[in-house]
C-alpha cells in the first residue's frame, strides 16, 4: 500500500488563529484595541491615525503581493497619486471629504488599471523593475509639475469640510481617527470577502502556479489586472486619508521608501492573513515612535534584526507567532481538561 499522511494530526488550517467554532471571537481583539485607542490615546491620536492609514496601505500590498504574488515595489505610486488627487480636489473643486476619498481612490485605481495592462504580462525581476520604474517616473513628474503639486513645498491650502457636514476635522484628530478607522474597516471587510471568494482563491492559485491556472481555464492576465487595480484603489484610499487627515500632501508620499516600509510591515506581521498587515503596520508605527525617542539609529537596527529573525525562523511573522501561542495554549488546555 502507499504511504498516507497521519490522519489524526490537525491540518495547518485547523491550527490557525480564528479557525474553529469560536474563531470569530478573535476578530474582536484588533478592532476592539483600535476602538479603545480612540478613548485612551490622547495626544497620540494622530499617530494612531497614521497607523490606520499605513495598515490600509499595507493591506493593499498584501492583496497584490501576498495573495496574487505580484512582486510590486511601486505601490507608493498609488498611495501618493491618491493623496494628490484627494488634495487637488479639495483645493479646486469641493472640500467634501467623502468625494475627495472617492476621487483619490478612483484616480489611483485608474492608474493601476493602465499600468497593470502595460506591465502584468511580465513577471519576477522584470515586473519588479517595471513597478519601480513607474513609481519613480510618477515621483519625478510630481517633483517637476510644481504648478500642480507644489513641488518640494508640497500641496498647500487644502480645506476639508466637516464629515457628513456634521463632524469637523478637529485639531486633536478625533474625527480623523474615527473616519480612518471606519474606512479601514470597510476595506478590510471587502478584502476579507474577496480573498475567500472564488476570485481570491484563483489569485492564490496564480501565485502558486500560473501554469496550473491556465490549464484549468483561468484568464490569468485579467485576474492579475483586476487585483492590481483593486490594490491600487485601496492604496489610493490610504493616500487620500493621509492627505485629508494631515491637510497636506508632500513628495514623500510618493517616495519608494513608503513601499519599502510597508513591505517590511507586511513581512513583520505575516503575509496572506490580512490581519498580518494590521498587526505588522500597527506594531511598526508604535515601536518606531517609542524607539525614536531614545535613539533612531538603534531603532533601525532593531527593526532590521527583527526582520532577519522573522524571515529566517518565523515564517508567518507576528501572526505566525500568535498561531503558535494559540496552538500551545490550546494543547495545554486540552491536556489539563482530559485529566
Amino acid at each position, binding site marked *: 500500500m*502507499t504511504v*498516507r499522511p497521519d490522519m489524526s494530526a490537525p*491540518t495547518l488550517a485547523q491550527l490557525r488563529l480564528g479557525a474553529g467554532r469560536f474563531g470569530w471571537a478573535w476578530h474582536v481583539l484588533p478592532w476592539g484595541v483600535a476602538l479603545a485607542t480612540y478613548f485612551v490615546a490622547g495626544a497620540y491620536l494622530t499617530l494612531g491615525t497614521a497607523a490606520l492609514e499605513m495598515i490600509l496601505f499595507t493591506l493593499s500590498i498584501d492583496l497584490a503581493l501576498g495573495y496574487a504574488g505580484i512582486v510590486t515595489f511601486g505601490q507608493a505610486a498609488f498611495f501618493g497619486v491618491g493623496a494628490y488627487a484627494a488634495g487637488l480636489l479639495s483645493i479646486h473643486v469641493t472640500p467634501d471629504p467623502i468625494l475627495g476619498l472617492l476621487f483619490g481612490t478612483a484616480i489611483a485605481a485608474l492608474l493601476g488599471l493602465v499600468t497593470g495592462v502595460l506591465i502584468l504580462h511580465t513577471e519576477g525581476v522584470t515586473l519588479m523593475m517595471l513597478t519601480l520604474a513607474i513609481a519613480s517616473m510618477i515621483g519625478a513628474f510630481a517633483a517637476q509639475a510644481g504648478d500642480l503639486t507644489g513641488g518640494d513645498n508640497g500641496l498647500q491650502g487644502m480645506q476639508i469640510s466637516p464629515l457628513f457636514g456634521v463632524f469637523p476635522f478637529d485639531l486633536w484628530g478625533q474625527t480623523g481617527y474615527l473616519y480612518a478607522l471606519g474606512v479601514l474597516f470597510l476595506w478590510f471587510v471587502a478584502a476579507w470577502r474577496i480573498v475567500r*471568494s472564488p476570485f481570491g482563491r484563483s489569485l492564490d*492559485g496564480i501565485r502558486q502556479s500560473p501554469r496550473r491556472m491556465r490549464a484549468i*481555464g483561468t484568464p490569468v492576465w485579467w485576474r492579475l489586472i483586476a487585483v492590481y487595480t483593486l490594490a491600487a484603489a485601496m492604496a489610493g484610499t490610504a493616500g487620500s486619508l493621509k492627505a485629508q487627515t494631515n491637510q497636506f500632501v508632500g513628495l514623500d508620499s510618493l517616495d519608494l521608501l513608503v513601499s519599502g516600509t510597508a513591505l517590511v510591515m507586511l513581512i513583520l506581521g505575516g503575509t496572506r492573513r490580512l490581519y498580518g498587515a494590521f498587526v505588522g503596520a500597527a506594531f511598526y508605527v508604535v515601536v518606531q515612535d517609542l524607539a525614536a525617542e531614545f535613539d533612531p539609529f538603534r531603532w533601525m537596527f532593531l527593526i532590521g534584526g527583527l526582520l532577519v529573525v522573522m524571515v529566517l525562523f518565523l515564517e508567518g511573522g507576528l501572526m505566525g507567532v500568535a498561531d503558535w501561542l494559540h496552538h500551545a495554549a490550546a494543547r495545554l488546555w486540552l491536556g489539563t481538561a482530559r485529566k
Partner: protein
Amino acid sequence: MTTSHAALSVRGLCKNFGALTVAQSIDLDLQPGARLGLIGPNGAGKTSFVNLLTGMLRADAGTILLNGEEITGLKPEARVHRGLVRTHQINTLLLETSLRENLAIAVAERENFAWRLLRFTPQWRRCLAEGEAQLAAFGIADLAQHRVAELPYGQQRLLEIAIALVLKPRVLLLDEPAAGVPAAEAHAIHAALDKLPAEISILMIEHDMDVVFRFAREIAVLVQGRVLTTGTPQAIAADPQVRAVYLGRSAP
C-alpha cells in the same frame, strides 16, 4: 459526413524552436470516444504537441479544429472552456492548497464563478462538494483536506487527472500520466485511467508499452516532430520501422 465531426482535428501543424523542428506538418484526428496512444522517443515533440494543441505554445502554421470549430487562434483558457483539457508530464498543482480546494478552484473556473464577489458561499460549497466527490471516485476521499505537498508523488499524479476530469472535458490530453511514479503506485493511476468516461476523446502519451497497448485502441508514432505512422496496437507492434526507431530499444 457533414454532421459528424472529429472531436479534434489537426492539419499541417508546424513549430520550430530556432533550428529545432518539434512539429513537422502534423495531421491527426481524434474521433469521439477515441483512445489514442501517442508514443515516440524522448524529445520527439510529444509534450510540445500537447502545448500546441492547448495554446500554451503558438503554432507557426496549421489549423486545429475542436468539434469542427476552429480554435487555432484561441487563448489557452478559451480552449479549456470549450472542453480541451490536459494534464502535465510534471505535476503542476497548487502545493500549499488542499486537495479538495485544488479541485474546487477548477470547478469554479468551469462554472465561471470567479467574478461573483457577493454571496458566493453556496456556489463555493458546491465546488468543494464536487471536488470531494471526484476524490471519492478515485478512492482518496480521506485526503481531501490535506495539502497537496503532504502527499506522495503518485497520489499527486492522481490529483492531476482528477482536476482535468472535473473540468468536464470533451477531449483530454494526458501527458505521461504515470511518469515519475514508482511501479508499486502506478497501478492506482492505471485503474483510474481505465475508468475514464467512455464519451471523452483521449490522447495519451505514455512510455510504458504495456500500458499503451492495454489502454489505446489506436497508436500514433511521433519521431522528430513528424507522425511516422498510425495504426492499431497490433499493427504498430509489428511495424518494422517502429521497432527500429522506438521499440527496438525496449523490446525484450
